[in-house]
């Protein structure tokens, strides 16, 4: 039981992929860093992701989740300026009584109790949670056998407990696809993966490696309308979905007998700590609204990773963590120039579901913009329109909703005096609608 540390330059909330990178970057920029992690080890959800495929972009290697996390843990251990606080939860952030621009966080740590941390900046890296059965309002009883894919993943990979033998998966999010393969490896019969949308929700590479390689059928425009069974799941009712209304088509209902239903129906940024500081949330991403430095609308509070918006790859989460950590350190150490708050507003244009940052400070020299499309476009252009005039476009072989697009803007792309940027995804050569 160590004595509580009560002051640091940067407090990182969450010790998963985003938080570890943020901590490393902040420390490497010269900041003293505390990482609050509620589990008894660092790594976050990476610890239960024992499949490989992590680190391809960052390290050119196909690492497992724990291996990937171990690299970042070693990196912060090497810096000497990062102290992890394990089994510690951040209860709230208080920015109301700023003393010299500092933020006070209230924490509780196992065996340590309640304590305050005074810090110059915060990086929120709390990750995300899975959408549940209740939120998609599937009818039926409440038997055992219905789990979110991540919960079942934790039970098999950490606790060595397998949830069932005949499996239906609703939702083609990446965790659902990974679990389709994982359950198959354990001998279970994965009957099918159903997806409400007419496009898969997960990465194309996971469709190929987790479903196609094992002959697991993927039924698009199909959903689960109810579950059967009182004590244990006995079956589910599937129905076709009308792509226009996204509602089940009456008369197409059919029963499939199974003992397990895994749900991979979306991830939602975890904003509980952000909410205590009154951080503004973007309804499109579900995460905080940020500027190009990943700073929220509460000065000194930065955010990265799946708490900001749900990513497809841990590599990109880490990348974003590095940006947020470096910027938080600069803020805490007083190395950022004065910022004008009458920034440029970034909006979602044609076929764009969400974009970060939601605003850009004037004078920013480099901006990393991350966006998701609403629909699939083969041979696409990502088009940037500044105050109604096309400023730049980037060509992509294919843009799909399940894969986040990243584009980099320079100062030259942001003409002096513009107020509004609008980003769209169109067929190559086409002009965005309504501009």
């Amino acid at each position, binding site marked *: 039981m160590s004595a509580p540390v009560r002051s640091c330059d940067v407090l990182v909330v969450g010790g998963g992929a985003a938080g570890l990178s943020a901590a490393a970057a902040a420390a490497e920029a010269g900041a003293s860093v505390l990482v609050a992690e*509620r589990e008894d080890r660092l790594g976050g959800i990476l610890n239960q992701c024992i499949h490989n495929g992590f680190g391809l972009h960052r390290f050119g290697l196909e690492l497992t989740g724990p291996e990937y996390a171990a690299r970042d843990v070693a990196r912060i251990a090497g810096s000497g300026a990062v102290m992890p606080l394990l*089994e510690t*939860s951040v*209860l709230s952030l208080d920015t109301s009584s700023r003393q010299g621009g500092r933020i006070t966080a*209230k924490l*509780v*740590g*196992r*065996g*340590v*109790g*309640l304590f305050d941390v005074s810090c110059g900046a915060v990086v929120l890296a709390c990750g995300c*949670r*899975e959408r*549940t*059965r*209740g*939120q998609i*309002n599937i*009818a*039926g*009883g*409440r*038997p*055992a056998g219905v789990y*979110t894919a*991540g*919960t*079942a993943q*934790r*039970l*098999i990979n*950490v*606790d*060595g*407990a*397998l*949830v*069932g*033998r*005949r499996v239906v998966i609703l939702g083609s999010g990446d965790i659902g696809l990974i679990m389709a393969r994982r*359950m198959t490896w*354990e*001998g*279970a*019969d994965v009957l099918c993966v159903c997806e409400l949308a007419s496009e898969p929700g997960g990465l194309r590479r996971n469709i190929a490696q987790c479903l196609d390689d094992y002959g697991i059928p993927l039924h698009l425009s199909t959903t689960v*309308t*109810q579950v*059967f069974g*009182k*004590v*244990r799941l006995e079956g589910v009712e599937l129905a076709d979905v009308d792509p226009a209304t996204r509602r*089940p088509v009456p008369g197409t209902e059919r029963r499939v007998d199974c003992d397990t239903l895994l749900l991979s129906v979306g991830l*939602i940024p*975890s904003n*509980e700590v952000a909410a205590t500081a009154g951080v503004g949330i973007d309804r499109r991403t579900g995460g905080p609204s940020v500027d190009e430095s990943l700073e929220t609308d509460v000065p000194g509070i930065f955010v990265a990773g799946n708490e900001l918006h749900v990513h497809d790859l841990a590599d990109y989460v880490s990348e974003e963590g590095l940006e947020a950590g470096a910027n938080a350190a600069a803020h805490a150490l007083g190395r950022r120039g004065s910022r004008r708050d009458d920034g440029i507003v970034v909006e979602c244009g044609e076929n764009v579901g969400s974009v970060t940052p939601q605003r850009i400070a004037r004078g920013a020299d480099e901006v990393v913009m991350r966006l998701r499309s609403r629909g699939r476009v083969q041979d696409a252009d990502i088009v940037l329109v500044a105050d109604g005039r096309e400023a730049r476009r980037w060509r992509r072989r294919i843009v799909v909703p399940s894969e986040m697009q990243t584009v980099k803007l320079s100062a030259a792309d942001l003409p002096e005096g513009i107020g509004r940027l609008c980003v769209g995804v169109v067929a190559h050569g086409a002009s965005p609608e309504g501009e």
Partner: protein
Amino acid sequence: MDVAIIGAGIAGCAVARELSRLSLDVVVLEEGYDVACGASRSNSGIVHGGYDPVPGTRKALYNARGMRMIPGLADELGFRYSNNGSLVIALSDQDLPAIDVLAGRARANGIEGVRRIGADELRGLEPNVNPCAVGALLCEGSGICDPFGMTVAFAENAATNGVTFRMGARVVGASRRGGLWDVALADGSHVEATLVVNAAGVHAIDLHNQVSSDRLASRPRLGEYVLMSRDMHGAFGHTIFRAPGPKGKGVLVSPTADGNLIVGPDAVDGIGPDDTATTPSGLEWVIEQARLTWPAFDPREIIVNFAGTRPCGADGDFVIGEPADAPGFFDIAAFDSPGITSAPAVAVDVAAWAAERLGARPDPAFDGHRDMPPRFLEMGEAEREEAIARDPAFSHLVCRCEQVSEAEVLAAIHAPIPATTVNAVKRRCRAGMGRCQGGFCEPLVVEMLSRELGIPIQDVLLGEPGSEIAPLTRGEGRS
């Protein structure tokens, strides 16, 4: 045994607690692995104002008595109760006569604090109510409670005062033999008791029909609900009912005593007693009806849907007391709404009849007080410091959404009525009741139950017998 109580729902547990005041041997026989497995937990959690039951019925009598007892019991036994008041809203002038009927019943039932209010006062009280509403009936005396917590409170206090609870004990029959009741259990064993209290919820009428020739009809009625996130708790202060119309009562929208918002129920007849599944059409109807009360209803804020089976009888009233041809067998049957509100008063009467029959004396060691288990989420900072100093397990949060500490989960597992399943833990301390619905904490709770009960993870149950959460080990997937 002096008394065998069949069923550990609100009625059985309230009677057990009343009988624990006396020097008697009392056993509660419950088929589930927890108390309140049936209608006692799957209901609206309303302490009804007493203006709805038809004057002169048992419902009218016990509702009025029960609602006056509950505030004091909530303090004494430590369960959540709030006197938030209720409103029966009229969405058009055509609804007003129905409201006047209720006002008349309130007068006849001796209920005070009930009055008509106009549209402006209604909007002042509840700005989120449908702006079409033309007025409402305000009942100041009604409230909300945590019906599960209330049942646990009765049960734990009864257990602390010497009542035995046998879980997983399913009663299959009762017969009278040599002046005693012989209660047969599904496992082949028997319990002999001088008196039986039939508090078997949705099965109570079937049990009654086994022992009495005065046969009653059972008409179980399903009610479907959706529960909304904590963020919606403040949308309404009062419990909002709709004026009853030709198509029934409409759904209610109410804050819950636990900090959520509840919407429901519908009323589906012709179901089996154990049928507690929601249906797509039922949930759709509930949501449609909710929008009539609350146009801004946002289905994205739903965290869970559930259904309960109300143990309705044929004539609409409770069946309370001893059938003429079954001496010593006390029914609490057809105990549907307002059963939660009425249970404390019914329990007083049933216990008094039992005491008289048995010539029982007060137990001088009886202690009627029970502390509400503390919740980290609800503590102030000084309380948290004090709790952690007393028990360091308060400093480790298990459930992030509801800020439930390890100490609370351990306390539930080792309580006088132990929580031995994931659902039992969830219902006591709310681990898994938040937005993520146990996505993160369920495996942690499973691990804790495995450790504390000394059983393999594979044997940990969601709720009922046979509901193992992860029954297999690695590689056992092949069937």
